[in-house]
């Protein structure tokens, strides 16, 4: 029962974060476009920047968990690469449950009221007054939520058969 739930959660988190990889393209296009928009069109440059800003925030909030799933985080494993696989798996579980999960939970608990207020008021960007600033704050919350979900999945997942 528990394993089935974990599998479902794992697939859902995987699908959600993998879908975000396409966001790199609009972020690149918008950040490039602000140059001709500023120097040639003399308009819409700040709009392009603000739009890119919240797309970027959303992208990196998904990317952190994507990197965890792809095992691409930087690590100094000169010594640990010689450990047996079971020891490394045990260390990875401990890392997920003792390092990432408490931190992500803390961010979620402490940050919820600020994010909720921003979301309720559909907060605008403070300098340009463009809409969508609340999405930057929601992205920070999403980052912590996905990190927590992935940490729990990694910690509770049954050991793989060898």
């Amino acid at each position: 029962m528990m394993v089935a739930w974990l599998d479902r959660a794992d697939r859902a988190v995987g699908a959600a974060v993998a879908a975000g990889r396409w966001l790199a393209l609009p972020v690149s296009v918008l950040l490039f476009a602000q140059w001709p928009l500023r120097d040639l069109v003399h308009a819409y440059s700040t709009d392009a920047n603000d739009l890119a800003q919240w797309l970027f925030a959303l992208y990196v909030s998904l990317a952190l968990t994507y990197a965890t799933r792809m095992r691409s985080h930087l690590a100094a494993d000169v010594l640990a690469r010689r450990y047996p696989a079971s020891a490394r798996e045990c260390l990875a579980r401990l890392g997920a449950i003792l390092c990432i999960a408490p931190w992500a939970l803390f961010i979620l608990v402490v940050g919820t009221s600020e994010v909720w207020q921003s979301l309720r008021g559909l907060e605008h960007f403070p300098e340009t007054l463009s809409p969508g600033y609340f999405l930057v704050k929601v992205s920070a919350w999403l980052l912590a939520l996905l990190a927590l979900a992935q940490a729990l999945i990694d910690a509770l997942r049954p050991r793989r058969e060898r």
Partner: protein
Amino acid sequence: MESAGFYMLGCVGLLLIGTGLPAYAVLIGVATLFAALGVAAGAMPFNLLTALPSRLIGLLENDLLQALPLYVLMGALLNRLPLADILFRAGNAAFARTRAAPLLSAMGLGAMLAPMNGSVGASVATLSRILQPRLRSHGVAAADGLAVVCVASTLGVVVPPSLVLILLGDAMLRAHTEAVNATHVAVRIINTQDVFRGALVPAGIFLLLAFVLAWWIGRREPPTPARERLGWGHRLVALGTAGFILLLLAAVVLGYVYAVEAAAAGAMALLLAGLATRTLTAEIMREVLRDTMAVTGALFALLVAATTFTLVVRGFGTDRLLAEFMAVLPGGPDVAVAVGLLALGLCAFVLDAFEIIFVVIPLLMPPLLMRAPDAVWVAVLALLALQASFLIPPIGYAVMMARSLGGEGVALPPLVRALLPFLGAQVLVLGLTLALPALTHVAAAKLESETPTKPPLSDEEVRKALQSIPLPPLPEEPPK
């Protein structure tokens, strides 16, 4: 409890090496544990920790950090498209008259890709994959080839506008602001552009020396079996790429475009080139986007972890302790700088440039800049020290990575012999820059002197300008 930050750093070092866990998880874990202990012992206010979500939001709305996925996208495109291969072959054809052609071409490729460089690790991976088999096929001694791959991979640390330089520029801006606020000295805070310009001359000298050394080593290699043949299409691609990179570099250094826009232009140009030459297929695009997201996530995770870690270290007041230590160091600013550089160099044995910029620079630089106020000079010295440390065998980061990515068969003694001349060149440039701080200001002074400036306003013009300013409406008389 002010020394708790040093224990935290020690714990991070031990756990990083001992557990092999990702650096971001170790940083977050150690910070969480010490924060809990600090709050429980009353050494740290809990309210300080509630600033963490806001700091996280601050990272997500940082304009400069938008460049991060763009550089990673460029790196992924270069890794998957045949462009780097074409550039290497074009360099080989251009230097065909000398036996050193493969090594010169390899160094040239490193220099061309350096401004688009994401991280030392990513550069080592790209250049090892492209260069090592080709250098072997040209009969270049394995140790010489590996040494050149290592050096070429670290050029991005000093050649602007690479990601390392952008992020160091931002970190130095913050550190300089802190130092100026603490010392109340009236100076202009440095920015990323200042660091770019400061690095130009020392980086240029090192590049020149690296090319001379590549030629010197390469002239002993056996003659190339067959002269490289390059079609007109590939020649055009190579020339176009070189021209584009130089143009982009000039535009950023002269201040015509922001670094983020330059990175976006580079990514767009590579995407369009890939589509135009039909080398960017749907499958490769999926792989590029997958690599981009995975590496961006890894780098951003490190940034998030470093933000948490430095908040807790500051919560204990370790930054103040470090400042006091720097303030009482005998021997003047030069000794303080030397101690700071040594600390950075030692960190570079186990940490990548990003980890150092995010974790070590924010703690080390503010007190250092209080002693040595020339922030551009200190920033460039830090870059040169980092680059040198990445190359010191056997545990320099670039050396270790290159050996694990196809250079396993190279014994250490010949590799040390091959790297020594390059390390000598780095020590020379580092020493020159240390002795002559003016080297880091030459480019900025030259560029500023060539920028046309308006003549100062006359008294009459000032009076007219002041009169043209609309005055705010007078407050209404309160009802009596």
